[in-house]
């Protein structure tokens, strides 16, 4: 069955390693007939949540109108949300976190966003995969709170320079993630 997939990326590097994995996933998912909407948080402008709790009161998700409002309808409709990010200081990048923080808007407005699936694509410079816990754990607990089910995590340590990902099986694993859809 064709699924609606939203891919949220956090890297500012357009040729970077997490983007390469993201591209591999998206290509594989589209080949299988799924619909993919991609939102590159670091190439858009999403500010943090201001906790004003006026979400959706003016129609769009956030009353502080930034690019989150462009992707919010697709997130609401999605069957699957994929989070793709490099590890910055042992957790996701600030740009992706801003998108995650604004998921709060759906909760405040009582929108039904339960029942989705999610996946994580991430990479880091260090060789220790435990570094990824700062990305993995917050997303896993957030998903549990939202009632989302994990369909896979592609966590690749030991990559930094652009292209390093090609020395790993990261892109193959990201493409294989599409099999879990």
């Amino acid at each position, binding site marked *: 069955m064709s699924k609606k997939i939203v891919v949220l990326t956090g890297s500012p590097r357009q040729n970077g390693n997490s983007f390469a994995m993201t591209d591999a996933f998206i290509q594989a998912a589209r080949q299988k007939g799924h619909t993919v909407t991609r939102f590159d948080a670091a190439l858009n402008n999403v500010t*943090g949540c201001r906790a004003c709790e006026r979400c959706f009161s003016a129609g769009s998700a956030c009353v502080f109108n930034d690019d989150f409002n462009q992707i919010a309808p697709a997130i609401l409709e999605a069957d699957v949300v994929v989070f793709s990010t490099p590890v*910055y200081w042992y*957790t996701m990048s*600030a740009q992706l976190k801003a998108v995650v*923080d604004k998921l709060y808007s759906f909760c405040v407005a009582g929108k039904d966003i339960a029942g989705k699936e999610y996946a994580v694509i991430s990479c880091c410079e260090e060789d220790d995969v435990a570094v990824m816990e700062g990305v993995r754990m*917050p997303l896993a607990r957030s998903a549990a709170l939202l009632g989302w089910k994990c369909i896979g995590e592609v966590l690749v340590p030991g990559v930094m320079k652009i292209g390093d990902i090609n020395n790993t099986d990261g892109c193959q694993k990201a493409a294989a993630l599409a099999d879990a859809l």
Partner: protein
Amino acid sequence: MKLQPMVFTINARTNFPLFSKEFSMPKNILIVTGSPRKNGNSFAMAEAFAREANKRGHSVTRIDAAFEDFGGCKACNTCFSSGCACAFSPAFNRAAPALQAADVVVFCTPVYWYAMPAQLKAFVDHFHAFFCGQKDLSGKAYALLACCEEEDESVMDGISMPLARAARSLGWHCLGEVRVTGVNRAGDIFLTDGCQRAAALAQKI
């Protein structure tokens, strides 16, 4: 020093010229907050910490990340190439001298989605500038004042762990953590010992 709207310095040293032996050497303390709620629970802890630190003769600078516009790191790696820390973030360039001068950096934050809020993370992400620009940021102490809605303290690990590992890679040591669970509405913190614990942590400086 020209005062910036959200970066203000309270120099309490001059207010306390007579140090008794129990007072340690005056230190530069930078409190960085992550909450967008001005009357919120983490802010109350920040104020309790600042008040105690001031009382003990330390110099306290405070930056409220949610009222700044740090923006994320763009990984351009041009940090410090034109003199200032970041080619894209005037807000971080205003904050950077306080960070460099700090003996103690206090992260004070609510937990948003099991991690620090994006605004505070944006500040932290800009630490990359000091690596990239080969500026020494080592030898500081850091502290964490955090609160969350849930009762389960392990919720805080999404903040504690990244900060602890970041601190290790920066060469900072931990002064202590105050982690308060079960607070949500503004004022809930006063039903806990959070502010007292924050003040007690300031006494360890």
